[in-house]
């Protein structure tokens, strides 16, 4: 009989706030070590915590998109343990009263919808970052006090694939809710997996694998760990609760520490922070500001006729999706083709996000209109994409400068048409006598004369207009 895996996942997600959770220090990744640390973050004697409301609001948003019930009366607790990265030697967290509980995340496992149950989501402060060098351990307190939410599932997952799908969905939900950057590589999303195996309904011995470096590795770690545990059990040996880490290079989990009986964190209610009451109204106001979810955007894109492949490409690049969110009345399909094609290629080249460029909302509206009306071609756009993105010039000016100006300047097209008519009087007569093929010939002459730069539709309309005068 086979062993069944049971997996519970804990994710720490840093909240994207301006300031830290309990101090007014700036919350920003990547600054010079210890430049974002004040006396509160360093745990100086006499200092007291304040509470960053923005963090509470983001936590409410996170709880909402995870379909959690939201606790109206908030209170924090102290978790006491000694470690150098823990400046006060206690961490302020929500042990007894998590902000959200009893939620779920829905995943799509090859067409089968599954609900991953969320036990709770709670707020807490991050520790400082330990940097281990040969003989010393250095501490960077920039991270100390950064707001986190910890999201804990019930032990309800059974395959590595479910775990990967859950984490991808979780990441997408929180990223689109504007709660976190969800960057595993920068540590703003950190995953721990609790893995046990059993042949019956009784859960086996729980092994925790901490701080797994990517979502893919979570899957690898789960499968490796389940196999390792199975081998131990099959050898009639006993498993003990322990904490391990996943080494991606070795593709193995490695023992960090054996869990001692009953970790004693001496929790008690944080006396320095009074109760925080969230009314229905406050909660609703916060929820009203949650940006449109990825799934709702998917539906919208599908209705606009964007292909499923392109939809996922846009969703995977939240900046592009957010860019599209600015428009209420635009052909999303045309816009998405622009974005996923030449725009994204150029953005990659200059290594910028679309919001850091001069590609304004107005430019996009004009371009989509010109493309849809056939005023310019995709080939035209390819030629001007650099100017559109990098300069603050208007589209019409860019088109002119690039020799595509005649296509929009009717007087120039008119001149060409005049010239063609003057040089082909006989054909014009034929046309007027009802020879439809003459029009095609004249049109060919116009295109030839303009070296193909005029918009055929515009030129054709104008030509007919002139001929019929």
């Amino acid at each position, binding site marked *: 009989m086979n062993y069944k895996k049971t997996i519970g996942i804990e994710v720490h997600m840093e909240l994207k706030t301006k300031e830290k959770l309990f101090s007014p220090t700036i919350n920003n990744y990547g600054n010079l070590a210890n430049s974002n640390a004040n*006396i509160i973050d*360093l*745990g*100086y*004697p*006499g*200092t*007291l*915590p*304040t*509470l960053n409301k923005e963090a509470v609001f983001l936590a409410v948003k996170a709880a909402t998109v995870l379909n959690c019930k939201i606790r109206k009366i908030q209170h924090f607790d*102290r978790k*006491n343990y*000694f470690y*150098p990265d823990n*400046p*006060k*030697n*206690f961490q302020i967290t929500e042990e007894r009263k998590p902000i959200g509980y009893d939620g779920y995340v829905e995943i799509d496992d090859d067409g089968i919808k599954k609900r991953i149950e969320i036990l709770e989501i709670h707020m807490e402060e991050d520790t400082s970052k330990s940097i281990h060098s040969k003989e010393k351990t250095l*501490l960077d307190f920039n991270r100390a006090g950064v707001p986190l939410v910890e999201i804990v599932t019930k032990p309800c997952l059974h395959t590595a694939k479910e775990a990967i799908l859950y984490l991808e969905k979780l990441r997408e939900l929180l990223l689109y809710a504007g709660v976190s950057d969800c960057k595993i590589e920068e540590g703003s999303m950190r995953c721990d997996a609790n893995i046990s195996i059993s042949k019956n309904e009784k859960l086996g011995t729980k092994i925790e694998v901490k701080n797994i470096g990517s979502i893919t590795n979570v899957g690898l770690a789960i499968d490796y760990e389940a196999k390792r545990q199975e081998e131990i059990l099959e050898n009639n040996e006993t498993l003990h609760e322990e904490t391990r880490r996943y080494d991606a290079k070795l593709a193995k989990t490695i023992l960090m520490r054996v869990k001692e009986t*009953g970790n*004693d964190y*001496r*929790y*008690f*209610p944080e*006396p*320095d*922070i*009074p109760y925080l009451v969230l009314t229905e109204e406050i909660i609703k106001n916060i929820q009203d500001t949650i940006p449109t979810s990825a799934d709702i955007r998917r539906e919208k894109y599908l209705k606009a006729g964007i292909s499923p492949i392109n939809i996922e490409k846009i969703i995977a690049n939240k900046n592009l999706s957010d860019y599209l969110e600015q428009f209420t009345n635009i052909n999303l399909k045309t816009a998405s083709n622009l974005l996923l094609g030449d725009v994204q290629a150029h953005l990659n080249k200059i290594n910028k996000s679309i919001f850091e460029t001069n590609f304004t909302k107005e430019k996009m509206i004009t371009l989509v209109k010109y493309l849809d009306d056939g005023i310019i071609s995709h080939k035209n756009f390819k030629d001007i994409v650099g100017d559109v993105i990098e300069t603050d010039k208007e589209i019409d000016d860019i088109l002119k400068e690039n020799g595509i100006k005649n296509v929009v300047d009717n007087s120039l097209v008119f001149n060409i048409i005049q010239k063609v008519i003057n040089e082909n009087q006989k054909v014009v007569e034929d046309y007027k006598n009802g020879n439809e093929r003459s029009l095609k010939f004249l049109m060919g002459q116009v295109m030839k004369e303009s070296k193909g730069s005029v918009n055929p539709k515009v030129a054709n309309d104008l030509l007919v207009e002139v001929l019929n005068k």
Partner: protein
Amino acid sequence: MSKYLDLDLKIIHDLLVKKEIKPIDLVNESFERINNNELNAFITIDYEGARKKALELEKIDVEEDNLLFGIPIAIKDNIMVKDLKCTCASHILENFISIYDASVIDLINEKKMIIIGKTNMDEFAMGSTSETSYFGCPVNPWNKKKVPGGSSGGSAVAVSSHITPLALGSDTGGSIRQPASFNGIVGMKPTYGRVSRFGLVAFASSLDQIGPMTRNVYENALLLNAISKKDDKDLTSVETSEDFTRLIGDDIKGMKIAIPNYFVSKIVSDEVLNKFKEIIELLKVSGCQVDYVDINHIDKAPILYQIIAMGEASSNLARFDGIRYGLKVEAKTLEDLYKKTRSLGFGVEVKRRIMVGSYILSGENAKIYYNKALQIRDDLKKSFDSIYKDYDLILGPASSRVAYDLNLNNDDPLKCFMDDILVMHANMGGFPSLALPMGLIDELPIGLQIMGKHFDEATIYKLASFIEKKLDLNLGGIKNEL
């Protein structure tokens, strides 16, 4: 040797306004007195800073409506004053120099008082004699063989010996009021939240409160005026803005006063009880309604204190680990560094309380002890609130006995809690409570405690001022004229 510091603040202020004296004269007199009396009231004396500040104040006009202008003040050494050592009377912070001002210090500076130095105390405010200080115990100016009380012993001594007219103390379970009682001065523990705790080294966060220690009631109210302000850096601080002197001098006729039977039971010495009964008679004669009442859970305060204060202290003092500041004893392993630093850095009483506190919060104990204590604490507060529905104030002695011999309590760590058995209730319930002298027993002062409703310090001062005037003890020998 000048004696300006023996004068009433109003007189000193007049002299400053008339330019007959300068702030530097007061500062120099403070220093002279510190050096002439071997009281060990101070851990740090800021000669340079205080003189510099005094000279700066000479350059500006004396603020005529600010009686505190240029007045020397002593600060308990668990309150942060920028650029001065803040030792908490502990070896672990012996060389710790504060890099910021506590919020109360901002207010002291705003009123242009002059900080003379940092006063001696029980280590981390844990004790009721000041004997747990790493820097040796201050002595009682009334009798140098006696303890000054604690934990704000140094601040009480500074005021009673007229080194400074004003001092700040902190009170977690009587640490302002018991030394005030032992030194014949006035000490107020304000309502919890009245004074910002930002910059006060935390002992028990839910009980700690900074308060004024002065020679008389009026000056006490004046100092409380200066230091009460809502502070955004302390989430437990509340919006308050009022003049605490405003009821001083009002008639007390018709005031309703409750005396808990517990406060006049066997726990109080006969001599103290007799003094207290004289006060009760005085109040009755003056037209107050005085009733004896029973209050639920009133006898449980010392137990609650030991559980709550020590539980919180074990967590608050965890930050002193040798990693970021303070004493550090190098060791091969991290665990050894913690052990050695904390073993050497903390004194016996502090270590005892950290251990008891850690035990109380450990595993299931948190439920058995700490959470249950919080429930009973809530009930205790409600019992007091129900008394306050019918009465304006609650009275009792401020301590069960007068100052006793140094080293008396050394054999029994529980004894020191018994000193505060009458005053801890105010901390448990967050109530304001004041100690003021009610007389002398064998040449040693003894204090009266007046406890009031939340945020009703003004009524406490009203009664206190009346009693002070009637008794006319003038223990501090403050002169009303030169």
